[in-house]
């Protein structure tokens, strides 16, 4: 059941603007993620999805708007602080440290844990939960396949015990069977109470998995709704594939 959108949301983004010099990536985006929810943001290439994730995580500055996590404003906070508050980003392309071993990659995930011993225990648990990672714990992470790297990136992010997991294009470059695995994993994570905000070009998959979905196009939210509201909705295609520069408020 979708959490109601209210002030009690875990993450609340309002009128967010992100510009890179003269180029506007986000032109006033608002969205919310409730505790334990899985929310998807879909849209074509260049819609601003990555900018959204990077802005929430604190990796790029936002020029205007609000980002609130658990009620407190985090816009302008540093990356290191934001991840300590409970938001973990798995960026596009996964970015595991290829020259470090699998185990070392995971160990970096517990950097933010106050209780290091508990973190180490969780690390061992993760190596059991993800058998492939456990098998290859001492191998350089660069040797893993795409799907395995995705597992590693997610496992690593989870070791920080985030309340909100941000995933930028987790299915990129992966075979359909592997994508199934990844989304299965996301389901399990969600069942454990971690909220998930996932950004995808692969709209169908995200739409099916998420409680609610926002359609982003050319820096603005064009359409938003629950799974039931959006699947089969003709407005969806228009929002997703719509002409870029029409500017204007989100469609109903």
């Amino acid at each position, binding site marked *: 059941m979708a959490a109601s959108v209210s002030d009690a949301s875990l993450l609340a983004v309002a009128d967010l603007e992100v510009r890179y010099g003269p180029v506007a990536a986000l032109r006033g985006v608002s969205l919310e993620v409730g505790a334990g929810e899985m929310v998807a943001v879909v849209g074509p290439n260049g819609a601003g999805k990555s900018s959204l994730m*990077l802005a929430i*995580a604190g*990796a790029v500055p936002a020029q205007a708007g609000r980002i609130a996590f658990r009620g407190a404003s985090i816009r302008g906070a*540093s*990356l*290191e602080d934001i*991840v*300590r508050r409970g938001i*973990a*980003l798995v*960026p596009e*392309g996964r*970015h595991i*440290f*290829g*020259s*470090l071993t699998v185990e*070392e990659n995971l*160990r*970096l*995930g517990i*950097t*933010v844990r106050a209780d290091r011993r508990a973190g180490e225990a969780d690390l061992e648990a993760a190596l059991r939960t993800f058998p492939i990672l456990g098998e290859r714990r001492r191998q350089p992470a*660069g040797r893993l396949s795409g799907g395995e790297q995705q597992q590693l990136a997610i496992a*690593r*992010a989870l070791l*920080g015990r985030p309340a909100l997991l941000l995933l930028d294009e987790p299915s990129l470059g992966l075979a359909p069977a592997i994508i199934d695995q990844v989304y299965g994993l996301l389901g399990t994570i969600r069942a454990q109470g971690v909220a998930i905000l996932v950004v995808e070009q692969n709209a169908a998959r995200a739409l099916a998995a998420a409680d609610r979905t926002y359609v982003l196009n050319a820096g603005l939210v064009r359409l938003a709704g629950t799974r039931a509201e959006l699947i089969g909705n003709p407005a969806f295609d228009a929002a997703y594939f719509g002409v870029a520069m029409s500017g204007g408020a989100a469609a109903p």
Partner: protein
Amino acid sequence: MNAFAQYAVDTVSVGGLYALTALGIGLIFGVMRLINFAHGELITAVGYGLLLLSGAALPVAMAGSLAIAVLLALAMERVAFRPLRGADPETLLIASFAVSFFLQKTLALTVGARAKGIDFLPRLGEPITILGLRLQTLQLVTILTSAVLLAALSWFLARTRWGLEMRAAAENFQMARLLGVRANRVIAVAFALSGVLAAAVAFLFVAQSGTLTPRMSLELVVIAFVGTAIGGLGSLVGAAVGGFLVGAASVILQTVLPPDLRAFREAFAFALVILVLLVRPQGLFPARGLKERV
């Protein structure tokens, strides 16, 4: 056989010194993509520190000079390089050039540009015989110090938490931060370590040359820098190997070149650098993720 062994010792000793210098430069480049020309000034500062503290007991003088190097390194990071974090490499290059010259000229201003003699660990100049080889004690100490420091640094990077954070930051700084690694701390540690390495190099260098000038580290740094470039910017192994190779090459060229070409050996070394850059611009042991950014 003995002559060959002699050359080998010379080569390894000089190579080791340059490897240590190159490591100091490579460490910083790894985490910040900054080529710290001012690393030479750290070495020079230690030298003058030894002079300043020459009245004190030896361990005190050495510890004090070491502290000077570390503090100066941290200061230069805080004042000059932190504001430029994330700037493009050309700007960083010019900035480190400027810092280097500023420190050099300020030093010349305060202590004078003329050479000063210093008597540091004169006993190291004495010969020592090991396994039938007659070498300078200093050479032995240099080789041992280089080996020990290299091993210690490797251990630090491979086995400690800070070392892990540094390696991660060197491969992909932004991603490391996204996992909570504190950028300021990692960089500060890198600079502090480079200060320690600079101090070691200074001790060895000053013991050998016995003189101090504001520009004494110039040649050392230029060669080490070149070695780092050849070895592969961003890779610590590359820096050490590159520094060693260039140092070794200068010794080998000295031996191998016909006498009238010997003075040109540095030119050959630099020509080699250009060649390497043309063939493999990222160096012989390129660092993984030199281009990667989130």
